[in-house]
């Protein structure tokens, strides 16, 4: 059996602490994924990656770094992967989704900070995540106050580039974001030593647009009102791994899965019994291995058919205009696409409400669950407006605030079961 310990040791990881995380994974993964019935065959690839999540991809990154390639860690769907890929760099998502990393993060941050921020810092400072050890640079962004201040601490331990995300969506804000992308491109060229050209950026835009199309194709199969060909939990796993997998392999595997799901629609093969209530989940992101809410909902009589969040539609909706032939035009095209993401960090953010309503119609849902990671002020503050809009549209909504701990699972299960029962 491949022993990953020498690689982790070379990466400077705390092996003893990391072993505790490894110990928790098999049971959690088994409970959430292997208890499901009728899973698509295509999920075998993502099962394999998740089963050795700190081994398979990190080992690949180690080999690529030996060839001189640079690894950029990111936390946000606003950071344009295209720029890194154009300069022969590698992007890996870093958001922490485990309670395991939170106590280490709390050594540096007060406890009333969102668990994603605390876990991300804890994973780096505690040396218990190989992805955090492999990065040559971390790319932050100013989407929330918690992350902004966390980056200042993380920057004491690892090279960091911060992109200033606009807080409004006026034309001048899109211009500003294009200029931030240009600054980022300069930084990436310095780190990689590779010149950015309109040609290599055009190729990278094609690569990432192809990934968006493939992921969207999987989601498209979830709109069928009669057949649910894949669980929300499985779709979430695919999305979580998309953040750190090789983008071309991700495209290939997502298209393969989509073929199987399209066949299931033709054959009427559903993973849930007929009449199962269809849920759209919206709100804060669900970084790997945060499977808690999906699992609770899908073992409480409902099926999640769409995720409107960063680990869902925000990651792949809207393509980058691929007709631009100059770097200036391409930066503008990237800015326009990325500024269509409707994060709660923007004001006003009516577009997110409209998007949730649109997705609720497209995916023919019976209800919406709006979830908020504890202490995420922006998503929590806009929750009442979202809920009112949904109620006005006749769509039942349940608001849930939670974190990465297990101790509210019973309460959540009771609330979700009551909500599903109320859907009729």
């Amino acid at each position, binding site marked *: 059996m491949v022993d990953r310990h020498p690689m982790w040791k070379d990466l400077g990881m705390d092996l003893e602490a990391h072993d505790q995380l490894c110990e928790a994974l098999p*049971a959690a993964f088994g409970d959430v994924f292997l*208890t499901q019935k009728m899973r698509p065959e295509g999920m*075998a*690839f993502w099962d394999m990656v998740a089963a050795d999540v700190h081994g398979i991809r990190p080992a690949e990154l180690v080999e690529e770094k030996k060839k001189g390639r640079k690894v950029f860690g990111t936390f946000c769907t606003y950071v344009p992967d295209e720029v890194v890929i154009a300069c022969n760099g590698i992007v890996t998502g870093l958001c922490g989704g485990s309670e395991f990393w939170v106590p280490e993060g709390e050594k540096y941050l007060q406890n009333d900070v969102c668990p994603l921020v605390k876990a991300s810092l804890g994973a780096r400072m505690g040396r218990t995540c190989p992805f955090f050890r492999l990065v040559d640079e971390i790319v932050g962004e100013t989407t929330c106050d918690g992350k902004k201040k966390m980056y200042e601490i993380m920057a004491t331990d690892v090279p960091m580039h911060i992109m200033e995300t606009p807080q409004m969506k006026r034309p001048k804000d899109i211009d500003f974001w294009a200029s931030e992308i240009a600054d980022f491109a300069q930084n990436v060229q310095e780190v990689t030593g590779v010149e950015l050209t309109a040609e290599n950026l055009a190729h990278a835009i094609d690569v990432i647009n192809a990934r968006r199309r493939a992921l969207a194709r999987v989601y498209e199969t979830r709109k069928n009102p009669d057949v649910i060909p894949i669980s929300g939990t499985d779709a979430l796993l695919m999305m979580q791994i998309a953040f750190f997998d090789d983008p071309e392999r991700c495209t290939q595997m997502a298209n393969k899965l989509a073929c199987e799901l399209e066949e299931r629609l033709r054959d009427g093969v559903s993973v849930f019994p007929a009449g199962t209530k269809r849920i759209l989940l919206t709100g804060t992101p669900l970084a790997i291995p945060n499977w808690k809410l999906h699992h609770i909902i899908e073992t409480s009589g409902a099926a999640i058919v769409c995720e409107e969040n960063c680990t869902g539609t925000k990651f792949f909706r809207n393509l980058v205009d691929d007709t631009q032939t100059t770097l200036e035009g391409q930066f503008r095209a990237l800015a326009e696409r990325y500024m269509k993401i409707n994060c709660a960090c923007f004001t006003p953010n009516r577009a997110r409400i409209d998007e949730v309503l649109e997705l609720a119609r497209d995916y023919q849902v019976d209800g919406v669950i709006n979830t908020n990671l504890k202490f995420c002020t922006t998503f929590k503050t806009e929750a009442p407006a979202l809920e009112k809009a949904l109620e006005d549209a006749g769509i039942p909504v349940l608001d849930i605030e939670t974190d990465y701990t297990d101790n509210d699972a019973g309460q959540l299960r009771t609330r979700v079961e009551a909500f599903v029962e109320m859907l009729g």
Partner: protein
Amino acid sequence: MRIDERIADVVRAHPGEPIDCYVLMPDHEAAFDLHEAARAAGLTARITPTPRATQACCGVSLLVGRDQVRSVLDVARRSDIAVEGVVPLPRQLDARRDRYC
């Protein structure tokens, strides 16, 4: 000890409980290949993290029902896929455990 005897031992130690077998693999690629070959042969197998009860490192295994483990091992032999061992365990899965990582 033969696999049948080891399964019988676990059955005796856990009367009435369902028993699953974890097929330990040398690497994730072999696990993926055996999964494909087993499914093509009409067998039920799932890729899974290797339970800590079986070894001391994160790794990839195949989860197979005890009634199919011999058939999966036959498929591995015929497909020239190396297998490192088989560990029978009482069922480790519980959808209502609500323990996440």
